[in-house]
């Protein structure tokens, strides 16, 4: 590696670095400042208060509820997405009639923004006038209209389901990419050796798909943890904060109640949670690949 190459390389990454440090770096500093000071609702920093804002958060039951629900939300959506996307990808990878159409249909939720999907579902789930109740009644599955969004018991699972629905296209695409890169000959060899389809799946497909599953897992978790539109459009975290996750509560704190200091403290907590997760995950992944390499 010579000097010119070094300078050249750095010159090439400099613009991206500059952009990121400007747009992302300064706000980080600002959020840290706001989290440790008292801030009025119009954004003026007042006194330094150290960890007082964090203490307010810790004492806030809605914060803990939102934290818990965020884990449920993330786990539910990502888990459901991965579980469904792998079989879907395997099917779509296979050759059958109408595959092209099916691929297009499965991709549709990705093209429609989360916000618009949520808006349409909010209308569809309307207790009095929505089509879902209509269809279910016509099919004889329910006798009376159900108020889908009136309680958290119904609304939160529905939100998770919608989250899964909109995450399937991306994850399926990643898996399809992975599947299409798998060499076909090892399957032939395995079949000749007498391995059945299930065994081929467990022993060949899964391990080879590991990198893709990892990528899908990490990207999805980061994305879903911070996902705002679905819950906001459908229930706004209500009734009684029972469907609030960290991001929706953050939004209310900052922009409805004007508690900017507390909201900034919460932002830092969210970042810390994700950071911890990423570090743990990276460690695990490195250990696995070391083990794999050692074999």
């Amino acid at each position, binding site marked *: 590696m010579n000097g010119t190459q070094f300078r050249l390389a750095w010159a090439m990454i400099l613009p991206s670095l500059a952009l990121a440090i400007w747009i992302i770096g300064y706000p980080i500093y600002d959020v840290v400042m706001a989290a440790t000071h008292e801030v009025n609702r119009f954004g003026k920093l007042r006194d330094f208060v150290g960890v007082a804002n964090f203490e307010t958060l810790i004492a806030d039951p809605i914060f803990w509820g939102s934290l818990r629900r965020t884990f449920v939300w993330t786990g539910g959506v990502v888990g459901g997405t991965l579980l469904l996307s792998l079989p879907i990808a395997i099917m779509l990878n296979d050759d059958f009639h109408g595959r092209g159409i099916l691929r297009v249909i499965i991709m549709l939720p990705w093209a429609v923004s989360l916000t618009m999907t949520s808006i349409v579902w909010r209308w569809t789930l309307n*207790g009095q006038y929505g089509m879902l109740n209509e269809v279910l009644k016509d099919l004889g599955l329910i006798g009376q209209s159900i108020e889908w969004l*009136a309680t958290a018991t119904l609304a939160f699972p529905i939100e998770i389901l919608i989250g899964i629905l909109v995450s399937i296209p991306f994850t399926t695409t990643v898996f399809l990419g992975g599947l299409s890169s798998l060499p076909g000959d090892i399957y032939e060899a395995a079949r000749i050796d007498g391995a059945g389809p299930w065994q081929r799946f467990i022993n060949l497909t899964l391990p080879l798909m590991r990198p893709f599953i990892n990528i899908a897992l990490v990207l999805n978790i980061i994305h879903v943890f911070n996902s705002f539109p679905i819950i906001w459009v459908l229930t706004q975290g*209500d009734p*009684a904060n029972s469907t609030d996750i960290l991001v929706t509560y953050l939004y209310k704190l900052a922009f409805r109640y004007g508690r900017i200091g507390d909201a900034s403290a919460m932002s830092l907590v969210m970042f810390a949670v994700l950071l911890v997760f990423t570090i743990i995950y990276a460690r695990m992944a490195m250990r696995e690949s070391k083990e794999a390499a050692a074999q």
Partner: protein
Amino acid sequence: MPRKAALLCSCATMGAIALGAVALAGSAQAQTEIRVIASHYSDQTATIFEGMAADFEAAHPDIDIVIEDVPWGSLQQRLVTDVAGGTAPDISIIGTRWLVDFVENDVVASMDDYITPEFKDRFIEVFMDPSTIDGEVYGLPVAASARAMYYNEDLLEQAGIAEPPATWDELKAAAEKIDALGDDYYGFGLQGAGETEADAYWYYSLWTHGGEIFTEDGESGIASPEAVAATQTYKDLIDSGLTQPGVTSADREDIEALFKQGRVGMILSGPWMRGQLAEEAPDLNYGIAGIPEGTQKATYGVTDSIVIFADSEVKDEAWMFLEEAAFSDKWRTEFTLKEGFLPVFKSVAADPHFADDPQLKAFTDLLPYAQFAPLVPNWQEMADTTKSALQTIYLGEGEVEPTLAAAADKINGILK
């Protein structure tokens, strides 16, 4: 260069410079700009304000008025961020309950320098109070409403009820009979959700049971015995199946839609419904009566105020616009009539359109008993806390007294 040409050139140049100077001077002098934000009440709001602007501009050719129409849902945030970013307009309509925060942070200008006693006298007193803080006037009431009970005359008749209910007990009885008419009919529309006034719907009950949002010692009154009784009344109605299902997912629009379809017997609403009913359900036979009494009469008085921002550089001109155009009799009548509000001017109240309107009577009759949203900072968070508590109770996930008590504690904490 030949003499003539040189002369011509210099004449032309001087002429150009002169023209430029005139143009510059003209533009410097011509347009003082006043930026006004009008909140979106209906599709007519912008037109009405444009009309005011046109009248004013005709009388003051050197002033240019720019009107912007902003929906209520985004208005508060928009203003807060505008102020934070230094781009606030000169004039804006605001929800009067936001005024306290604005005044505390020196965001709006006091109007005491501009208001003459004669001007003040044109207003109906009770509407000026909410925008008067510590004796100084910070905003002029631009839209005023009270609340009353709308009832479906046909349904009441079918159910064999002669008179609209005047007390909560009578309402419950009436609701039972209406509910019995069929699966699709509901007795009482109860709003339990939504960004607009889900908590206010409960204040109707609170006030008519003699309760208060804040007691005289400045503590939260939402856990008082009166408040408990008020909540019990509503809970009773819900548990007996006399309201529409899905109370905690019904916002104002939902229950008003139900009423417009003729499927609910009684709801509590404001003057805007009349305009909407005339347009969307002209065949519906309805009446307006006072909010049912528990132990006393009450209604919710709401004003929206128009304010001038402290950082505005054209405060004098802005006031002129308000005094001459926005608050002229002509435009006050126009606005109040078209948007369906209550008159804030004594002169407008005397106008036959309003004085002779029997339906308006139901609202104006209650004005002496009007209560207003308290003017305290951080009101939004308190309102949300109340709403949360109510939703928990409506869903049956919390007992009335302890849930209200917990909410009251939280509100007292926010107050300090």
